[in-house]
């Protein structure tokens, strides 16, 4: 069976997820992801026209909380577990060329 996912697609998805894959891994994931899509294709072949899409595994809607304040965390404690901090803020490496 021909592969549904190309090496280029794996490289693209890996870049989106900031993953650095070796050549061997790229081949391996191209295979695995194609297998997953093959499985999805089997399901796609079934007639599910009468079945409501499952939006959530639990038969539950409208779970809300009241708009009431709860204590926030202590900042020193929070920043204490961060790799780097400065002036009460998280300090992160430069975000090169990736403005949102």
């Amino acid at each position: 069976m021909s592969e549904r996912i190309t090496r280029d697609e794996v490289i693209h998805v890996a870049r989106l997820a900031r993953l650095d894959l070796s050549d061997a891994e790229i081949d391996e994931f191209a295979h695995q992801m194609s297998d997953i899509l093959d499985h999805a294709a089997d399901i796609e072949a079934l007639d599910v026209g009468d079945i409501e899409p499952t939006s959530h595994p639990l038969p539950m809607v409208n779970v809300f909380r009241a708009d009431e304040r709860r204590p926030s965390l202590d900042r020193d404690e929070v920043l204490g577990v961060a790799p780097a901090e400065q002036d009460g803020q998280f300090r992160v490496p430069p975000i090169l060329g990736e403005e949102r």
Partner: protein
Amino acid sequence: MSPHEPTLPDEWELVVGLEVHVELATRTKLFCGCANEFSTDPNTNVCPVCLGLPGSLPVMNGKAVDYAMKLGRALGCEVHGSVMARKNYFYPDMAKDYQTTQYDKPTSMDGELVLSDGAVVGIERAHIEEDAGKTTHIGGGGRINDAMFSLVDYNRAGVPLVEVVSRPDIRTIDHAKAYVNELRDILLAIEVSDAKMEEGSMRVDANVSVRPVGSEELRTRCELKNINSVRSMGRAIEYEAQRHVDLYNSGEAPRQETRHWDEDGGRSTPGRSKEDADDYRYFQEPDLVPLEPSAADVAAIDASLPVLPAARRARLADLSGVGPDVLSTVVERGQDGLALDAIEAGADADKVLTRLQNDVAVDDWSNLTPPLLAALIRMETSGELTATQAKQVLSDMVESGGDPATIASGRGFEAMESNELEGLVDQLIADNPDEWIRFTSGDDGEQKKMQGFFTGQIMKATNGQADGRAIAQLLAAKGS
């Protein structure tokens, strides 16, 4: 269209759609109990949920959903069942590495916004999402591409937003401005946001493209970000549209991208090119259940809506003949209730509205009650007070209260008897025969000029106490 409306070359048409992010005025964030409030002390309103710590779970703020549905209905949208989705991206303003938003099933769809001049802009959708944290780039002049590192404050992360997306129905900069103003007025009227652009509780992105006049195509658009005021938006759209026209005219084409508006430099610069929607790998948020408002829920929302600005303007328009500018100013200031009551009390509607627009541009007009305003307008329409005098009396009434008759007599405003005025006019005609002939037999321009001359002379002789309209009537009667 205002006389200052900047225009593209004749053969080009502007096409604009606006995306407005509105911060909802809830007490707490969208998915946790941290305070939803602006704080200069960074990372003080944070908890495991909004920091995306492992094992934490979001719970939807019911108030935020109420507010979002209220806004949807105020925009005439269908409000129906919706689900939350994850929008995946890597950027440190969200510690979770995804933003919880709505994708293919937003809360509100297919509405419209009626602008003050009656133009209608379609609303494609209004969806619920969470805000991101704030990043500050240090080094390299604060520019993201050259920064040495960045600092992140998550106080804003998780603050509830509604993103209102218009259809690309806007064709002029004035309409873009009117759209933002109208949306702000609605937000204030339904009390779901403080809608302050300068404080970031209302943020506008503009999708701009151009096309040849007569064409219905939608050409490549650019999304402008970093717009901080209505005025800045006008400049940004104008610049961007002209940039597109210039590109097309030189045989090139713009490319679809997000651009950053530089207010000081008066230009837009490229940001990152827009990732394909698929690259965000949207999928349904497994940690939150669907929102399924019942018909009764939606009916309750509808019942809770106040009369909206467009309807309030229409109510005044039915009673008067003033222009849309006057109506929107009076409604924007919340003076329409006062105006309606004064008109109800028998005052001339046009006069009430124009007096309010021109002469009551103050924050506090609580001294002005409907009966007092009506009494003043009656004194003006009956000729007891001239326009200038009425203006002065009104200013005193707003300032320190009191009834117009007392204030007028206190200021020594005695209405001129009409026969007294007529005597003055006769005298003036006798003293200036040449000017009178030019008034009676000159062309339109000449007549206007001489009317100005005679009116000026009479005003001078009466220290401005004469009624301009009465003078005009007398001159017209005597000249015919």
